[in-house]
């Protein structure tokens, strides 16, 4: 798994936000488009693509795609 790939997948889920506006260090919850649905979507996206289940608390703590990436790496290592 690459960070750039994850950023791209996350960016695709924001339909009204220009792709270039979402980078590895974008604070996702600061995006105007952010809603509670996006937390669910990102959890599902990661479950489907990486077979890793993020908890809601982890999603709340994670600010940026890099944070999410690090949680995935950590969980993969602990598998």
């Amino acid at each position, binding site marked *: 798994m690459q960070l750039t790939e994850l950023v791209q997948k996350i960016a695709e889920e924001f339909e009204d936000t220009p792709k270039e506006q979402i980078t590895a260090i974008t604070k996702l919850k600061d995006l105007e488009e952010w809603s*509670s*649905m996006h937390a*669910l*979507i990102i*959890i*599902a*996206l990661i*479950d*489907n693509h990486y077979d890793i289940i993020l*908890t*809601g*608390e982890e*999603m*709340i703590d994670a600010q940026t795609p890099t944070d999410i990436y690090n949680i995935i790496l950590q969980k993969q290592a602990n598998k």
Partner: protein
Amino acid sequence: MYNPFSLQGKTVLVTGASSGIGQQIAISVTKMGAKVVITARNKERLLATYEQLVAEGHQWVLADLAKEEEIKNLVNAVPKLDGVVHSAGIIQPFPIKFLKKKNFEPIQSINYNAILLLTAALLSNKKINRQASFVFLSSIASQYPYKGAATYASTKAAIEAFAKVLAVEHSSKGIRSNCLSPGMVKTAMYEQTEQAVGAKKMSAYIEQYPLGVGTPEDIANATIFLLSDASKWINGITIRLDGGLLAGMH
């Protein structure tokens, strides 16, 4: 003493009895005089429930209701029943556009398929006495769902319909079938939901309940009513237990 809610002389099967609402139902119905057969997947936790049952003559059977073979073993192990409480259920939020068989099949298998298969097997093996009462645990999510509840809410809605069909098919023998539809109840599933949505969101949600969050005892008491002869004229309904959440605008 006059007590139309007594379960003396009745034998009741409780699924999902190792935790949460199912565990409390098992304990409460024994307090009302029933003999119970409790079942769940986890031996350690099921035995912990068994230890808390009141009086003697109860039975525990390990079964994973996702497996047809284990449903068969359970049905063979149970005596004739006057009540069946289906509390086994699982929850996993998932947005619709990401749904795949691997996400929803495990939930369907426990929340829906297991109920149909177990009910069918109990009836065809003549394990259900006349005047018996079936109680199925639905959820307010079946009528008032939340984001991500596609599988959970739709399996619960399906069970409410199933319970009515059962009521229609077997009422000639005095057999009844009803649902309980709880809102948020303080159980392990509550903790799990809190983990999934975050503590802040959860407490904001709970604040909407005029009578606060429910307890397993609240659900167990309604179950006692539906299992007892006090409800012998009630068939094919769903009782909502939500602390007044859906009564109107608050």
